[in-house]
C-alpha cells in the first residue's frame, strides 16, 4: 500500500521502483532515500522520509518508471 503524508509529498508505488536512485540523488531537499524494504520484485524501493517535500516534481521527472512516483500537492486529489 502507498503511504500517505501531509501534502505536498511524493506518492511512491513501491512495486514499480527499480531502485536506480535517480530520484533520491536529484531531490534538492534530500527527502528521498532507498529503503530497506523489498518490493514484490525483490528490489529495495525508494521511500519518502516523511517531511521536507516542497512538491517541485524533480523526482518525478528523473524517475524512469511511469508509475513509481507521483507528486501529491496541496488541495489536490490524493
Amino acid at each position, binding site marked *: 500500500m502507498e503511504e500517505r503524508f501531509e501534502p505536498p509529498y511524493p506518492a511512491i508505488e513501491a512495486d514499480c521502483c527499480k531502485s536506480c536512485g*535517480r530520484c533520491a540523488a536529484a531531490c534538492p531537499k534530500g527527502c528521498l532515500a532507498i529503503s530497506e524494504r523489498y518490493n514484490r520484485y525483490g*528490489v529495495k524501493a525508494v521511500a519518502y522520509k516523511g517531511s521536507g517535500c516542497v512538491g517541485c516534481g524533480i523526482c518525478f521527472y528523473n524517475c*524512469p*518508471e*511511469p508509475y513509481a512516483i*507521483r*507528486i501529491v*500537492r496541496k488541495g489536490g486529489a490524493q
Partner: protein
Amino acid sequence: MDNALATKGMFPVFRRSGAESRTTHYCAGCGHGIIHKLLAEAYVDLGLQDRTVIVNPIGCAVFGYYYWDVGGVSAGHGQAPSMATAISRLRPDAITISYQGDGDLAAIGLGHTLQAAARGEHMAVFFVNNSIYGMTGGQMAPTTLVGQKTTTSPLGRNPETDGMPLHLCELIDALRLPVYIERVSVADTGRIMQARKAIRHALEIQRDKKGYAFVEILSPCPTSVGLKPLDAARFVTEKMEKEYPLGCLRDRSAEAPARPAPKPWVRLADFFGDDGREDPHPAAHDARERHFKFTGFGGQGILSLGLVVADAARALGLETTWLPSYGPEQRGGDAQCTVVTSTQLIGAPAVEHPELLVVMNQAACEKHLHTVRPGGLALVDATVRVDPAQIPQGVRVVQIPAIDIATAAGVPKAANVAMLGALIALDALGIPEQLLVEALERSFAKKPALIPANRQVLQAAIAHCRHHGLAGELP
C-alpha cells in the same frame, strides 16, 4: 497549476509483463522511461493524443506500443522512418513519430533516416543515443565513443579500425529540408527539462504541419555501458557530451510554411472508370470470389490465357484481377498467373489455394498441384505425369491433351487455347462461352490472321472434351 504531477498518456497497466504489471521492461536507471514519460506528457498536454502514431524500432524500445496509449506500430530494423513516411502521407492529420535507438537509426537504418530527412517528411524523429547496442547485449554502435569498451571492442573503440563516432544531428544538419534539429540529454534535472522542451517543440511542429523535426536524446544505458545507474548518468554528461555537444542546431519552425492541404484521394475504380460495373451481365450471379491459377513455362501462353479469362470476366461485369509472375528468363522459366473474379471489390490479387489450377508442364504440376483447395479442379496437360499421391483430398484432376490437340491442328503454340477450349467445355470458369471466345479474339486484335487457326484449336478441344464425356460437371 496542476495539483498533482503524474504520468499521463500511458496505459494504466502494461500487459506485456502480466495482467497487473505497471512497470516497464527497461533496466534500472535506463533513460528510455524518462523519455517515454516526457513524450506522453507532451502529446497529452498539446491535445494530440488521439491522432498520434508512434513507430517503434527494433531495439530496447520495441515494446513502446505496450506503454504509450496512442497508435503504435513496429517497423523492420531501421525502417521506422520509411513506415512513418507512409503513415504521414496516408494520414496527413496524424502526428507521426519515429522513436529509435542508435543501433536502429544510425547503423542499419541510416539510409532510411537520411532519406526521410532529405525529403523533409512530416514527422518527429526521437533518436535515443546511448552510445551502444543495448538490447543485443552491449556491442559497439556507430555512436560508441573512442576508447569505449563494448563486447565487440573489448580494448576500446579504436579509430584506426573502427572509425570515428557518427554525429547524427550534424549529418542531418547538412540537409536542406529539416525544420528543427536539437540534441538534448536526460542525465540530470536541468537537462531533462531542456529535453522536455525539445520534445514538445518537435510535436508542436507536427501539429502545425511545419515539417521534419529531429531530436537526439543522450540517454544512459547502465546495463550495457556497465555502470551503476547514477554513474551511467554521469557518463552521459562527462563523456558522451564531449563527443556530442548539446544544443539546437537548427530551428526554422517560425518561418517554415505549413504543409498544404493534401489532395483528395482518387479511388482506383474512379481512375480506371467503372466499365459497366454498375450493370453486370445477367450471368454474373455468383457472388463468391473465385480464384484461378495458370501455370507452366514461359512461352506456353500461360499469361495470355489468364489475360483472356480476366478480359472475359471483365466483359461479364465482374471485378477482376490478373497477376503475372515469371522468372527473369524471356522464355523457358517458370511462368504463372492468377486471376481473381468477384462481384465485389477484390482485396488482394494473390491466390494461395486456387479452385481451378491449369497446369501445362511437369514442374508446375509438382509445384502447384498440392495447393488446390478441396472441391477444386486441376486441368493438367496429358504430357504431365500426375503422381496420385500428390493429389489433395477432394480435388479432381482432368488431363487434357492440349499440346497434342494444338500440334495436330498445326499450331503447337496454341496449346493454351486448347486449354481454354477445355475450360469452356467443362464450364470451369462460370463465364459464358461467347464472352470467352470474344475475349480470345480481342487478344489477337493485332494479329487477326491467327484467329481462324486458334478458333479451330478451341473447337477441337471442346469437341475432344465432349467426346470423352467431360462436360459441365464441375464444382
